[in-house]
């Protein structure tokens, strides 16, 4: 247990409403363990319970039941001890919009009891590091989305937290902003910080996270390393790119799977299907295309992307319900 930064067992959280129809189970027996010093991705569709999980972990919301520990402390009974060790980047900016960037950071540093002089120094460091140095007295209200996100991230790092929660940190950022957040996260992990990151971008989880938990309807429906998840669902896939989009229909019938298993991308003239036996499938498809006189630009085997894993897992959840 000692090496667990986060440990959640059977967490339940229901949002109120006196009438039964208003009751919403946001966490429904969620289990999660995050090893110290790692980046753990929490992946899930809208409404899966990601934000609820982060708010419970950050002591903002009390779980109805279950055991939730952060840095070895109970989030309900030892909330203060938890708060000393965490940083939070919520889904929505947690900044004083009327004040400027420096004022915000200084205020948070003071509230972390750094002392007036130290707080000023720390604010300067962070402004520098996140490229916010020349915003002057401009209130946060007038910041661009990317600047606000960077300031919010800076605010969550005022004391170099042991454990950092990032709730959809790059939603709404342009590619440059995203790359900046990613590199900040990587450098933190280099320094030993544990990061729990929620995201809807599979690429983000793939890039940053050592392990991923896929969450749907308040439970973890799959977890593992990105590679494990990819091989667990569907195994390898074959991609066929044709020269002529008009022949896509004919080519579908030649693949070694039922038609329903083939995904067709007309714009890219691409067919894609799961395969079980890699080499047999590859040679079989090439031969069949040749015999049918269909011209292929490319035929390749590949692992599934996380997108496919994600759709497979969460889609399956929908069918079952």
């Amino acid at each position, binding site marked *: 247990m000692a090496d667990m930064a986060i440990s959640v067992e059977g967490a339940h959280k229901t949002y109120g409403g006196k009438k039964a129809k208003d009751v919403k189970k946001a966490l429904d027996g969620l289990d999660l363990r995050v090893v110290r010093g790692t980046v753990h991705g929490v992946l899930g569709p809208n409404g899966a319970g990601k934000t609820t999980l982060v708010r419970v972990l950050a002591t*903002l919301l009390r779980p109805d039941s279950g055991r939730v520990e952060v840095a070895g402390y109970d989030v309900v009974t030892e909330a203060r001890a938890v708060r000393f060790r965490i940083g939070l980047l919520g889904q929505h900016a*947690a900044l*004083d919009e*009327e*004040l400027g960037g420096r004022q915000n950071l200084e205020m948070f540093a003071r509230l972390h*009891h750094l002392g007036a002089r130290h707080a000023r120094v720390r604010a300067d460091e962070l402004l520098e590091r996140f490229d916010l140095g020349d915003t002057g007295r401009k209130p946060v209200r007038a910041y661009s989305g990317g600047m606000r996100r960077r300031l919010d991230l800076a605010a969550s790092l005022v004391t170099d937290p042991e454990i950092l929660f990032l709730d959809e940190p790059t939603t709404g950022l342009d590619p440059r902003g995203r790359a900046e957040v990613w590199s900040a996260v990587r450098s933190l992990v280099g320094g030993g910080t544990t990061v729990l990151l929620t995201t809807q971008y599979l690429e983000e989880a793939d890039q940053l996270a050592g392990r991923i938990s896929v969450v749907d309807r308040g439970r973890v429906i799959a977890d593992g390393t990105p590679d494990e998840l990819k091989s667990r669902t569907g195994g390898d896939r074959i991609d066929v790119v044709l020269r002529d989009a008009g022949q896509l229909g004919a080519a579908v019938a030649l693949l070694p799977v039922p038609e329903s298993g083939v995904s067709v991308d007309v714009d890219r003239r691409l067919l894609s299907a799961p395969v079980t036996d890699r080499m047999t499938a590859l040679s079989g498809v090439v031969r069949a295309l040749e015999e049918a006189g269909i011209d292929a630009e490319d035929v390749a085997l590949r692992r599934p992307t996380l997108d496919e894993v994600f759709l497979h897992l969460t889609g399956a959840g929908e069918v079952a319900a």
Partner: protein
Amino acid sequence: MSAYVLTDSWTMTRRELAHWARQPVQVVVSLVFPVMLLLMFGYLIGGGRAVEGAYVDYLVPGMLALTMAFGLEGTMLAVTQDLNKGVIDRFRSMPMADEAVLVGRSAADMLQSAIGLVVLIGVGLALGWRPQGGGGGFLGAVGLLLLFRFAMLWVGIQLALVAGRPEMVQAVQILVWPVGFLSNALATPAAMPGWLGAVVQWNPMSQTATAVRELFGGPGGEPGHVWAAVVWPLVLLAVFFPLAVRRFRGLGR
């Protein structure tokens, strides 16, 4: 209780002062509004009340008390707005003293009310109001007014925490006005129908207004009301202060 209540409360007070510095117009408006009310009642409506002596000597202390009561609205609005801002999440996820957010609010509001009192007293004096109670009476009256404001402040915080959303504040605002006016702030209960006079007598605000009038040595003061003007606010505080702090700590339950 955390060892950092004072430091953190001071940091939160500074936050409010920084807001003032960025919104000077808003601050001025909040100071001018009671002055407007005073002028309105003094010149437009005033004069015809059944009060012995100059109406201004009756009105000014009443307006001072009324202004303290209406401060409740400002506090409520500020707290509900704050609660609906993301920054509260950051405060609550940090190891700061929980109550500092509320204490900072109350310190800033008290400072604003004190400044408001100074302005209103100045305007009152310019209108010809002359307190007769001597320096001790004057200070005592100001003390009672601020005590009353402090009680209203925590009532406002608790109401804001219960209401939760800015829309709900409007409902309370509509209620504050009759409570404010159902007092002897502007008119003496003697001039009202019996049952109304009784309600007005019992209004905590009337207790403060009467006591303040006594201490200022003007008309409408009755001896023996000072204790009520001390006890009433303290009772309100004893009830609402712990309620508000508990409620704030319990957010997110």
